[in-house]
């Protein structure tokens, strides 16, 4: 059997297809992306590439548009983190009480996760339409809150939060299911004995339940932060970064700089920034959330 498991030829042969595709189309381009960020060229093809050192990063860091996009993505991350965790895990706690019908609710709450973001983004665009056309504005009319009506995606003050809320709608079901799985894995005995000890409600949640599901919550935090950092689809479809850059995030800015204005060097610099920032944020989150794991 030792021979079977150490056959070099087979090792190579079986690893090769996956490695060739993965290295050629995912890893090598990252290296290229870093190289490209030191060059400037104004067209995808047939244009001479000029080495410009750190200039692309220089113009990126001097650009007000870039800093606005960083501020926007931080706000987008914060809104998604707070609402998706609270709604997702809150509903998970309610579902985990296993009352009759909870399966139907779980199905309905989760299904936006599987929908194409393009479709949900377009639907939310219709909901946010301005004046008396938009569904949300009509709803506000109906319940007597006309004063709140606005062009949700045209108004620079509301656009980013409106997009963020749409993204919360599409995503929290995922974290609800992660939380539900973690809650279901807690042995019944622990809950019962804590009740006998007199722990109820909030006390029980914070001193028993929360430590038990902490590892899952950590995964949710990392996925939410890195996922929001990379988010492109929903903003591209709903606002294209507008109005006036109010919803641009680094990934949409990268797309426009490179593929609309032919600033491929600057675009590459922004994409390197996205890569480094999402790795750094993931690392930071894991570090901040590190704690003694609970054995049971």
């Amino acid at each position: 059997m030792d021979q079977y498991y150490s056959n070099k030829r087979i090792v190579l042969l079986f690893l090769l297809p996956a490695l060739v595709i993965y290295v050629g189309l995912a890893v090598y381009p990252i290296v290229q992306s870093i190289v490209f960020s030191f060059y400037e060229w104004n067209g995808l093809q047939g244009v001479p590439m000029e080495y410009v050192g750190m200039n692309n990063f220089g113009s990126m860091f001097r650009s007000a548009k870039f800093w606005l996009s960083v501020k926007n993505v931080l706000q987008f991350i914060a809104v998604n983190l707070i609402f998706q965790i609270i709604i997702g895990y809150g509903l998970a706690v309610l579902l985990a009480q296993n009352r009759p019908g909870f399966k139907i609710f779980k199905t309905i709450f989760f299904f936006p996760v599987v929908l194409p973001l393009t479709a949900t983004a377009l639907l939310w665009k219709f909901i946010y339409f301005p004046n008396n056309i938009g569904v949300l504005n009509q709803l506000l009319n109906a319940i007597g809150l006309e004063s709140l009506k606005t062009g949700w995606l045209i108004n620079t003050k509301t656009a980013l939060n409106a997009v963020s809320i749409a993204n919360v709608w599409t995503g929290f079901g995922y974290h609800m299911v992660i939380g539900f799985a973690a809650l279901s894995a807690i042995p019944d005995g622990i809950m019962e004995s804590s009740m006998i000890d007199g722990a109820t409600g909030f006390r029980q949640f914070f001193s028993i339940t929360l430590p038990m599901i902490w590892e899952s919550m950590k995964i949710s935090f990392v996925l939410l932060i890195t996922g929001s950092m990379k988010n492109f689809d929903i903003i591209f479809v709903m606002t294209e970064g507008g109005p006036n850059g109010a919803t641009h995030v680094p990934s949409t800015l990268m797309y426009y700089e490179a593929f609309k204005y032919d600033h491929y060097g600057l675009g590459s610099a922004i994409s390197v920034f996205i890569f480094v920032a999402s790795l750094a944020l993931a690392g930071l989150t894991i570090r901040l959330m590190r704690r003694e794991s609970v054995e049971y």
Partner: protein
Amino acid sequence: MNKRRHSTKWYFLQMGYYAFMILVAIIMAFPIYFALISSVKGNTEIFSNPFVPTVSPVFENYPRAIKTGHIDKSFFNTIYITLSAVLIAMLSGAMASYILAKFRFRGRAFIYVFVVAGMMIPIQTIIIPLAFYLGKLGLFDNHPALILLFTAFQIPMTVFVVTGFMKGFPHEIEEAAVIDGATHSRTLFMIIIPLSAPALVSASIFNFINIWNNLLFPLIFIRSAEKQMLALSLQSFFAERGSDYGGVMAAIVISITPTILAYVMMQERVEMGLMAGAVKG
């Protein structure tokens, strides 16, 4: 306390629970309900009364959306591209996972981490070099190239889930096969892969939904409407004919139907598959 009659407070709590859950369910279901009822309405009726279904449905929105938005072509393109990429990721992923889970050689741990780390690569980071090289090679509008691109980004997740699963197999499985004189390939394809079906299905569902919903790759790499994928056809249909609300709604309904059907038919599997990336499958 088990047979005691419930107090009034208990009943209020019960009612509150269900009232709250139903309210959330309405918020979650509304956009889909809105798309469905609007897809059979005329343009003015969609916004004059967005909350109730029409009494006189019109079905012309569907053929118009399909024709002008190239929804039929891109629907089949998307099925072809998604299934091919899922299949290649499954096969190449299973082969690599088998090696990484069971074989002994130097550098195994490194290769595993190197591949799995790919889950952290944001596709935005590599889109410019990919556009550069594919453009140079004349591979825009090329489905096989797009399929391999999608595959490359699904391999890390597939290897992560499937390797974890295969590690649990006892050596006796292969011992029996080797005694019978089976080759490595035969053992892999006749024994290991069928046994890994649960993990392969989970990973493939995850991959399927990711590719089906992807917007950025077709946005950059597909230029002609004939070769386009669904997510982008939908987006450009809206960009070009945004005032044809009924048509857009019909196109939306067509594009979300497959994933909704898949989810309704295999709910547990889809939830598990999507969670596979987060919690080891």
